[in-house]
């Protein structure tokens, strides 16, 4: 359960420690491809005087650059988990070395096919190294620019995550129990304490999904205390990979929204449903609540919470963390997707992109090490891995 302490998400930085980007992240890869090809385009623009020749020169340059670029990216993809364990300077040196070696190998392979002018190798290597350094510099600056945002996000978590209404109404509900049902009052205060413990701690590291689910259960129990029968909750966790690592408080604020916008405006009972599952290397969570067109009274607050979660997903997973919301008939649906990470994969083992649980069920021999996981989330539930 405390795996969070020994793993490192992609953009975790204290001001003192540096880290290389995650070369397996789609966002990182796209950025590298984009920057290198842009540089080729700029070079073509500088070299050629006539517009009609700029385009062909650009393609030529891009074609010349591409083999080495793709080779380097492939190697970095393969060794990324190992790289992330090295100190930053060593890691950067290894990346530079990979660039040079890949450059030489690609040159040797291509030379017999397309004869290169003398001295071309040295020129190409110097260029490649410069581009590599520029990119490392860029990622370094980007990480630096983003890390205060993490602190900011955490501060925001403390200030805006739980609505003050919820706190005071919950305390009021507990007060109403003390005289008649002291045992229930005790339980409610314990839930409240747990909830605030999580809200007030440092939430920058990824945490096990099972913990988040447990927190959501406690939160919903408190809401049910206030709202009684009006709040019905449906959990669909049969295919939830409980060992997945997620940004803490990724679901709770979304549930808070669901209750605030979906249940509280109803005079009758309403259902909030939570469906968490693994699919295609990704962890999915779909939350649904009743939706009523109501002049968009509470729209602003809703957007703020969604933006907050979206931002944190982006900080942790870049382009691979996605939050989408839509209205489906009379239901409001939020769909969260993020890469499936476990303590093992994130710590950088060679099996970083191991096949996930659903593929194991799909029946590739059952050789997978996770067949069944038992997780204690409220009632004990069994998850097939």
């Amino acid at each position, binding site marked *: 359960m405390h795996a969070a302490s020994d793993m490192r998400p992609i953009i975790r930085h204290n001001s003192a420690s540096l880290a290389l980007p995650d070369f397996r992240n789609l966002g990182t890869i796209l950025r590298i491809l984009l920057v290198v090809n842009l540089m080729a385009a700029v070079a073509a623009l500088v070299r050629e005087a006539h517009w009609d020749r700029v385009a062909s020169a650009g393609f030529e340059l891009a074609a010349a650059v591409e083999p080495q670029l793709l080779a380097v990216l492939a190697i970095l993809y393969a060794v990324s988990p190992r790289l992330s364990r090295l100190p930053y300077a060593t890691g950067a040196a290894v990346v530079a070395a990979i660039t040079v070696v890949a450059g030489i190998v690609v040159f040797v392979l291509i030379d017999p096919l397309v004869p290169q002018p003398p001295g071309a190798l040295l020129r190409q290597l110097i260029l490649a190294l410069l581009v590599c350094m520029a990119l490392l510099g860029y990622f370094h600056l980007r990480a630096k620019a983003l890390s205060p945002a993490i602190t900011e996000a955490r501060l925001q978590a403390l200030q805006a995550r739980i609505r003050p209404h919820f706190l005071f*109404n919950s305390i009021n509900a507990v007060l109403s129990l003390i005289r008649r049902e002291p045992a229930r009052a005790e339980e409610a205060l314990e839930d409240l304490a747990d909830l605030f413990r999580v809200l007030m701690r440092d939430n920058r590291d990824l945490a096990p999904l099972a913990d988040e689910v447990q927190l959501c259960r406690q939160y919903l129990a408190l809401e049910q205390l206030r709202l009684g029968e009006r709040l019905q909750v449906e959990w669909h966790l049969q295919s939830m990979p409980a060992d997945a690592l997620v940004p803490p408080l990724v679901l709770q604020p979304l549930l808070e929204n669901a209750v605030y916008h979906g249940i*509280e405006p109803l005079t009758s009972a309403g259902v909030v449903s939570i469906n968490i599952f693994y699919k295609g290397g990704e962890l999915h969570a779909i939350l649904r609540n009743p939706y009523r067109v109501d002049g968009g009274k509470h729209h602003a607050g809703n957007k703020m919470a969604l933006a907050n979660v979206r931002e944190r997903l982006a900080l942790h997973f870049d382009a691979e963390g996605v939050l989408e919301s839509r209205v489906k008939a009379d239901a409001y649906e939020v769909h969260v997707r993020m890469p499936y990470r476990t303590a093992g994969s994130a710590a950088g083992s060679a099996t970083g992109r191991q096949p996930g649980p659903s593929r194991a069920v799909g029946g590739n021999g059952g050789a997978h090490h996770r067949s069944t996981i038992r997780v204690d989330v409220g009632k004990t539930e069994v998850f097939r891995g």
Partner: protein
Amino acid sequence: MADAPLRVLVVDDEAPARRRLRELLDDCSAVLPIAIVGEAANGREALDVLQAVAADLVLTDIRMPDMDGIELARHLLKLPQPPVLIFTTAFHEHALQAFDVNAVDYLMKPVRMQRLLAALQKVPRLKPLTATRLDQLPSTARRFLSVTERSRVVLVPVEDVVYLKAELKYITIRTVQREYLLEESLTRLEEEFGPRFVRVHRNCLVARDFIRGFERRVGDEGDAHWEVLLRDVAESLPVSRRQQFVVREIGRENQ
């Protein structure tokens, strides 16, 4: 007279909050005679209760489904003898910033017994909220219009209104079923409900949802004008020359 208990109605959508207030009122009743005349889970229920039993004081939450506390306050004014109203709220709401914290107008949840008692003791000397006072609250559009008929408050859901037509002192509210008379200003209603209604004439607002179409009519003297055709109501309303642009505007939207 001094012995007549203070009649209180408790309004909150959360059952535990109502229970807590009851407990506190019980505690207060050791000092001050109190009679709890009822409970309601939203403004609409509260109004129903108040039509049946009289109350001196309504303790109401603000944020409730169906009809919130502020809208309740507005409709209460139409009762023959409006009770005093005190808002109970969990957090310093934006809506209440217009009110003085030291006034008795609102109590913070969780409410302290001493604070509640002090408020209750002041009730006989307090006057009901005035409409001017309520206008200071940045409230959202009402969900009901209320009219007084034979000293009862009748609620007309805004979504049932086909048109609002100013006539002499009153405004006629037309629903599919019948007409009601309302004593308010058409301009204020237009501001409050915004895009729900279209002004087709100096004295008339029509609900967009009830517009079926427009028809060109030629009068006896050969002068032509547009008429609004209505859904579910066999009536049509003239569009004034000044408002003729709405014909094109709505015609375009409906294409």
